[in-house]
């Protein structure tokens, strides 16, 4: 289990949307970074958001809480949060509380992008 890498976010644009690639661990000490980035995305009127979890090594309830804080507003604007490329240990935490019922979780960025293209959310 790593302690060196804390948390950072890489941001990439796609057609009317944004990919937030999370790196490191998401706990009570780092979740505010994610909160600020999602707030910034929503302030830019972007509501199609892909959360790329390829390099997310850990999540606690503090991280889950940030997604829950924003999902209602995102969906009210016709958008969504789609998660992709989750490591097994991270998926296990989502699954423990039943979050796969609420969120779309897919295996790759390409699959996440195609969901937005098919769904046509804005």
């Amino acid at each position, binding site marked *: *289990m790593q302690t060196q890498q*804390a948390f950072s976010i890489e941001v990439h644009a796609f057609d009317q949307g944004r990919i937030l690639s999370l790196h490191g661990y998401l706990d009570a000490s780092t979740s505010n970074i994610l909160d600020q980035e999602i707030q910034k995305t929503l302030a830019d009127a972007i509501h199609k958001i892909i959360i790329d979890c390829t390099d997310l090594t850990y999540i*606690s*309830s503090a991280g889950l*809480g940030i997604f*829950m804080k924003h999902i209602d507003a995102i969906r009210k604007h016709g958008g969504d949060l789609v998660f992709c490329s989750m490591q097994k240990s991270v998926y296990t*935490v989502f699954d423990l*509380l039943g979050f796969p019922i609420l969120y779309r979780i897919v295996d790759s960025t390409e699959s996440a992008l195609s969901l937005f293209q098919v769904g046509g959310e804005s």
Partner: protein
Amino acid sequence: MTMLEPGIYSASASVHELAGIRAFVFERLTTQGLDSNIAQSLCLAVDEACSNIILHGKDLNASRLIIDVEYSNGLCRIRIKDNAKTFDPNSVKSPDMMSYFKNFSYGGLGIELMRRIVDGMIYEQADAKNQWNTLLLHKYIHSPRN
């Protein structure tokens, strides 16, 4: 952070200590032979317990956390001591997750995660004889829940 002696870890009650606490718990459990997936889930339970203590005790200065970890004979016992405000996680009701999702609620899931990971949580609050609140988390490794 201070390693008081092998198996005992002391940290200030700060969210910035959480990564070190998780690394300590993971290392202690896996070096004693526990499966790394189970050790990871126990790290999450400890993180949630410590986060709650930090959150609820944040107005007390200089509060500390002392964590000790044991794994033997199929039983994990993790003891978390703190000198922050008394807070018994057993006093928090489990949320109805379907209502939680329907209402787009957020927050308050840490204790529920702990409940779903461990087999028991015993809380003893500080008193005149003992200045430390103590939360004991235990998990039976050969239980059907694994």
